[in-house]
């Protein structure tokens, strides 16, 4: 398991072949192999790309595999390519002492994805931050309001088409 993490693996098939016994990969394949669209092992980190509509169920599947701690989530704006936004979720297993990353891609000016907050209360502030700074909406979030910027702020500062300096 640890050895496979030291090699570079690109693409779903390569990861599935080399790491079928990895706790998270096995859990995802058993739960819904079709939802896993891409996978990668890069610099010792495992990333699994999940179709956005299946993301919440995927987090539940890896929780059952032992990844019990929601560590972090954020977005990356790949403007002007499509799909535009990449969401990266990081989970840690206190028992396995391992971290994995789930990715989901969403597209459009005002994208929406299901919120993981009902399943992972720790995601609350992180999703609000992504909403605040990227303008991605999270369906089912208990309180999707701006968190860092003022409530009346216009625009989403961390988007790539939002200037770093000068007037908007």
């Amino acid at each position: 398991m640890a050895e496979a993490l030291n090699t570079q693996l690109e693409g779903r098939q390569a990861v599935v072949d080399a790491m079928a016994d990895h706790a998270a990969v096995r859990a995802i394949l058993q739960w819904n192999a079709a939802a896993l669209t891409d996978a990668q092992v890069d610099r010792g980190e495992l990333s699994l790309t999940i179709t956005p509509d299946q993301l919440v169920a995927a987090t539940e599947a890896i929780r059952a595999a032992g990844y019990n701690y929601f560590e972090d989530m954020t977005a990356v704006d790949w403007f002007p390519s499509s799909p535009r936004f990449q969401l990266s979720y990081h989970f840690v297993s206190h028992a396995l002492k391992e971290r994995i990353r789930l990715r989901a891609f969403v597209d459009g000016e005002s994208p929406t994805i299901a919120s993981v907050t009902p399943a992972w209360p720790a995601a609350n502030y992180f999703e609000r931050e992504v909403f605040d700074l990227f303008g991605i909406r999270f369906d089912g979030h208990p309180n999707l309001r701006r968190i860092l910027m003022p409530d009346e702020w216009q625009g989403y500062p961390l988007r790539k088409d939002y200037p770093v300096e000068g007037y908007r």
Partner: protein
Amino acid sequence: MPETIGTPILAAPPATGSAEQHMVINMGPQHPATHGVLRLVLELDGEIIVRLYPEIGYLHTGIEKTCEAKFYQQVVPLTDRVNYLDPLANNLCYALAVEKLLQLEIPEKGQWLRVLLAELSRLNSHLIWLGTHAMDIGALTVFLYTFREREEILRMFEALAGQRMMTSYIRVGGVTMEPPLDFFSRVQQFIDILPEKIDEYSNLLTGNPIFRNRLIGVGIISGADAAALGVSGPPLRASGVDFDLRRDMPYSSYEKFQFNVPVSTASDCWARYEVRMLEMRESIKIIQQALDGMPTGPVKADAPKVVLPDREKMKTQMEALIHHFKIVTEGFNVPKGEVYQGIECGHGQMGYHVVSDGSAKPYRVHMRYPSFATLQALEAMCKGRMIADVVAVIGSIDIVLGEIDR
């Protein structure tokens, strides 16, 4: 898990009970016990907290956006300013993330020096926590004592990096330069006297009936709830979850050090106090091991295209001068990729998520700071308690608003 978590009090219907008797009051952002500019909206039934809603963002400066416009090496000074009480941990976490992207090996002495400095920085952070926490409770003396020792740490940082708080000493590829000649003997002197000083703080607080009554049984949260709400570091370990990144997912050669991870199952403010007090003693142990076994050799990686050359080399060698000029004016390109580097800082699990598109500027830098996540558990810890307990709980989870708002 309280179902109302995250619902603003002013926008939501009142909680159960005789709602017309409830009062909504505002605490902060200029309240001295909120450690900066934290604003809490409290719904009270008499003096009992029914709901609590943190309102943050008063210190937001858009550091993550600024990083995208800087070269990789120019981001290092920005990281100091996020958690300004634990500056070297910020530097370390960022440097480790970029080094992972570059797949750069740091010489052994560089790694050990980083461990030593990260632990000194943790002591700095814990000393401030102890002083301010005790001050919030009303024990003003301890603050003066802990800041005396913290001053010595800051003086050592100044000798090391030329700066007391914004050190920027740990950089991509190693550390800035060799530490000054008397640095290690100074650290040795400091850790020789520190255990006595910790006994002194302990004498002032541990047996103090007021301090005990204010902390024991206050702010209880179970380990499962704490982990679910994103709590990490000493508050999580005080709730019985035995997890420390230094031991469990080691970085920067922490696996070569022997230390214990203090854990308590009491889950209250007192447990957090005890865990941090023990952690300070463990940090001293780690620093002692680092001093005893400090390897010899360079402190920077042999990567002329990434690491700035030494000053003498730059002035005498053509190659070094060219590299210096290139790094300063054009930065260095980092291969495409996405990495996440987590470390254990004074407050809990810090993480840097760096995405590179192959250019000399980071495409995206996301900072996961422990206080931001831990703040989500504040309501669960304070619910049903008196308003004065909020002050004790905020002190016990040790927040820094700089890292919450970034």
